[in-house]
């Protein structure tokens, strides 16, 4: 018989990797890309992606809805777990529509204040990344 904590971890396969799963591609700081799920290598790596979050405008105090994706991944599905201080590259679909193109983000686990290691998931707050401007001579 497994304990409750183990059961919660197993349930993540349904709750964040179930029918609402969104595929993500991770590139670790050592340059290794992960696109398949470690628990089931026949499946793409994926998790829950929430595109909009509510924030408080620090100037006016009003609540605003901002485009700020938050990604939740099951730790046991990852080849390597992001650690504070590391820079990771992640690609997620631009919208929840099937076949949507992927957009690029950078994230660091520093921002993951509630790393969720006790119940088996990690929450990622990505930051938009763009190409360096072309040097002008």
């Amino acid at each position, binding site marked *: 018989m497994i304990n409750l904590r183990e059961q919660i971890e197993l349930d993540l396969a349904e709750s964040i990797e179930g029918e609402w799963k969104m595929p993500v591609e991770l590139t670790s700081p050592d340059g*290794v890309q992960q696109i398949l799920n470690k628990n089931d290598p026949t499946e793409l790596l994926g998790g829950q992606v929430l595109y909009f979050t509510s924030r408080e405008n620090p100037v006016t105090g009003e609540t605003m809805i*901002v485009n700020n994706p938050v990604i939740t991944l099951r730790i046991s599905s990852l080849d390597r777990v992001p650690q504070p201080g590391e*820079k990771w590259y992640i690609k997620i679909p631009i919208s929840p529509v099937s076949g949507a193109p992927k957009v690029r983000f950078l994230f660091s686990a520093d921002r993951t204040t509630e790393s969720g290691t006790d119940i088996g998931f990690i929450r990622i707050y990505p930051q938009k*990344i763009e*190409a*360096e401007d072309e040097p002008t001579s």
Partner: protein
Amino acid sequence: MTMMFRTVKTALVTTLDGESESRFTVLGRQVQSKSPDEIIGGLVQVYFADGAFPKSGRMRGTKSQEITIEIDMQVSATAKGDISVLDSATSTPAEKAAALLAVREASEVADGLIDALIDNVWNILMDKRNETLGLDKPDIASRWIDRIQKDTLLERGDLVVKTANMKYTCRVQESVSGDLGNTPETSTIDTIVTAGDTEGAGVEVENY
């Protein structure tokens, strides 16, 4: 006649806008909130904030006003990196690792951008050629940038926003305009001569 602080604010906006050469946007008012996407190049908001009239023995004639004009600056930024290497299917893990290591985080990029914006605005305003902001010499005197302050980093969605503030002070002479009065309607002088193309126009002379 409008008060001088309004003239100075308009002249400040015009000077900054003209000298910016499209490197940043200048607004002559304080906007409540702005999407970070719209301030990528830098946004400068100019507005009158404070005026003081030191009382002197002379109570008639022009009044000297020490004015403070706030200059709010905002930039937003994304992280910057070598996307082509990170996205390439042929890049080796070592190449991707090096590219990730070289990525500049958004906070670092934003800090550099706001420093550059402060540099630009300060240099435009303190330039000797812009001392009077295009106004006549006696209208504006003793212009100065009192202080520059950088604020904390704000996270707005997947971008970060950095703000800074500059206080521009100067002395102007205000004169009382008297009654507010009212604006008269524009008068129109109709000079159209109702004559056909072939008939000509002129004075018709009749001989009696």
